[in-house]
C-alpha cells in the first residue's frame, strides 16, 4: 500500500506551519484570561482582538461584528436558535434547504420540535437552491432564511446575492453557512445582503475547535450559552486565546484570489483524468462550483467497497460529518440520484498542500480499483449502475 494521499480538504485541512507557530507562541506566553484586567490579561485580549481584525478583514466585515465560537456548528446553532427560539408565544417560521449541512438541518429539526415552523426548499438536479423557490417558501411569519454559500458535498455555489436581495425585499433575515467557501471564494460580508454568516478555521489550515459568527448591525440574537459576558454577551465562556490567534493567522494566510485558481486547476486535472473511466459523472453544476471540490459517481461500483479499496486515498463518501450514517447522501438523493448511485459517489477535495503528482496518482488508483470492482460485479443487474 502506498503512502496516503490526502484529498479531503472539504472535511478538514492540515495546520499551516505559520498557524502552528502563532499558536505555540500564544500557548507559551499568553496564557492569561483575556477578560482579566491586569497586564497579562490585557495582552491576551490584544491577541484576541488582533485575530478578530484578521478574521474581519478576510470576510470584509467590521471586527465588532465577529463573534468567536467553537466552530461553524456552534455558529449555525447560535444563528438559528438565537433568531428562532420561540419567545412570547410567537411561532416564527424558518426557510432552509434540503441540502444544508447536518448542523443546520438537525438544528432546524430541533426547532420544529420546539414549535417553530420550518419549510425545506428542494435543490434542483444541478444542486442549486433556486432563489425563486426560496421566495415561494417565505411567508408573512418568516423570520429567517438559512442557505449555505457552498455545498459541502458537491461544491455548488448558491446564488446568495439573489437570495439575499429577495430576503431584503421581504424583510427577512438571511443566515449563510460559509464554512466551505472561506478561503476558496472572496467574501465581502459588510456589503452583502447577509445578516448572519458562520465561519470556521479548520478548513483553511487553521485549528479545529474555533469558528465565528458574523452578526450584522441591528441583528438581535438570543444567547444560547450563559455564564459570562464574553463576545458582547452572545457567547459566554473564557475565550480560547490560542485557538482564536490560530484562526486569525489562518484567515490572514487564506488568499482565495491566489489560491482559488491553483485549486481549480488541480480539481480540473483530476476530473479530466477520471473521465477516462467509463460512465463516470460529476455531480453539481460545473459552471458554479467552488474550486476545491469534485463529487463523482462511479456507476456499477458499490460505495463501501470503493472506499475500502481506495483506503490509501483520504476521500469522503459525502460529508465527513455524516460518515457514521449508513444512509446515502441526503444532498445527492436530494438532487435526484438513486440511493445506489449516491452511495457509489466520492467527494474529492484539494487544498493548500495538494500536488499535481498526488492528483495524477489518485486518478490512477481510482481507475484501477473501479475496474477491479466492476469486474467482480460482471453480469450484475442494471439497478447496480442506475
Amino acid at each position, binding site marked *: 500500500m502506498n503512502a496516503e494521499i490526502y484529498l479531503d480538504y472539504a472535511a478538514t485541512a492540515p495546520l499551516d506551519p505559520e498557524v502552528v507557530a502563532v499558536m505555540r507562541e500564544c500557548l507559551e506566553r499568553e496564557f492569561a484570561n483575556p477578560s482579566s484586567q491586569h497586564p497579562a490579561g490585557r495582552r491576551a485580549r490584544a491577541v484576541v482582538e488582533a485575530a478578530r481584525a484578521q478574521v474581519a478583514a478576510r470576510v470584509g466585515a467590521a471586527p465588532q461584528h465577529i463573534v468567536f465560537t467553537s466552530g461553524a456548528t456552534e455558529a449555525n446553532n447560535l444563528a438559528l436558535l438565537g433568531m428562532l427560539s420561540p419567545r412570547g408565544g410567537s411561532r416564527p417560521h424558518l426557510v432552509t434547504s434540503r441540502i444544508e449541512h447536518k448542523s443546520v438541518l438537525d438544528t432546524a429539526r430541533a426547532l420544529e420540535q420546539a414549535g417553530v415552523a420550518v419549510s425545506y426548499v428542494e435543490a434542483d438536479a444541478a444542486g442549486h437552491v433556486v432563489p425563486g423557490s426560496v421566495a415561494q417558501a417565505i411567508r408573512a411569519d418568516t423570520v429567517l432564511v438559512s442557505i449555505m454559500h457552498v455545498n459541502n458535498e458537491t461544491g455548488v455555489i448558491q446564488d446568495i446575492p439573489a437570495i439575499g436581495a429577495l430576503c431584503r425585499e421581504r424583510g427577512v433575515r438571511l443566515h449563510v453557512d460559509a464554512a466551505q467557501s472561506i478561503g476558496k471564494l472572496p467574501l465581502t460580508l459588510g456589503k452583502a445582503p447577509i445578516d448572519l454568516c458562520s465561519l470556521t478555521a479548520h478548513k483553511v489550515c487553521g485549528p479545529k475547535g474555533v469558528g465565528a459568527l458574523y452578526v450584522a448591525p441591528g441583528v438581535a440574537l438570543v444567547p444560547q450559552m450563559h455564564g459570562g459576558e464574553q463576545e458582547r454577551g452572545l457567547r459566554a465562556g473564557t475565550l480560547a486565546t490560542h485557538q482564536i490567534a490560530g484562526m486569525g493567522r489562518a484567515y490572514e494566510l487564506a488568499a482565495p484570489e491566489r489560491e482559488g485558481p491553483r485549486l481549480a486547476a488541480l480539481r480540473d486535472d483530476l476530473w479530466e483524468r477520471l473521465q477516462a473511466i467509463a460512465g463516470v459523472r460529476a455531480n453539481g453544476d460545473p459552471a458554479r462550483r467552488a474550486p476545491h471540490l469534485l463529487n463523482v459517481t462511479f456507476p456499477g461500483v458499490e460505495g*463501501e467497497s470503493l472506499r475500502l479499496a481506495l483506503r490509501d486515498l483520504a476521500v469522503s463518501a459525502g460529508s465527513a460529518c455524516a460518515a457514521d450514517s449508513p444512509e446515502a447522501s441526503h444532498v445527492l438523493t436530494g438532487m435526484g440520484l438513486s440511493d445506489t448511485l449516491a452511495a457509489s459517489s466520492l467527494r474529492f477535495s484539494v487544498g493548500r498542500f495538494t500536488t499535481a503528482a498526488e492528483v495524477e496518482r489518485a486518478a490512477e488508483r481510482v481507475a484501477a480499483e473501479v475496474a477491479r470492482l466492476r469486474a*467482480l460485479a460482471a453480469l450484475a443487474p442494471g439497478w447496480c449502475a442506475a
Partner: protein
Amino acid sequence: MEYSSEVVRRFDAPRNAGELPHGTPGLVAGEAEDRTLHVWIRFQLQVIDGAIQAARFAAFGCPHTVAAASLVAERLEGRSVGDVALLDVRALQDDLGVPVEKLGKLLRIEDALTACRRALDRLDTDVKKDD
C-alpha cells in the same frame, strides 16, 4: 466501518472470483439480490457426479459480502452438492467477523446457493427425462 484482517485480505485478493468458461460441463448458476441492501451475488458451480469440482462467484456489494462470497466459493470446491444446504451463514459471520447489521447481506448468499440447488435439481430432472 472496521474490517477484520480476513475480510480485508479476501476483499483485496478474492479467491474464486469470476466466471467459469462457457460450455463447462455440469455448470449451474444461481443468484440473489436485495436492492435496498445494495447487494447482488451470483455463484457458478461445476457439478460432476454429485461433487462440486469448481465454484466461482461474482458480487456487487460491500467488502463483507465480497469476502464471504469468496470464502463460500472456496469452501464448496471438493464438497458434495448435499453440503450446499448445510452452509451456515452465522458461522461465516463468526469466521469473518461480520457485524450483525450486515447479516441481511450474508443471507443473500444463502439465497444464491438455494438458487444454485434449484438449478441443479432442474438439471437432474432434465437428465432423467433424457434417459
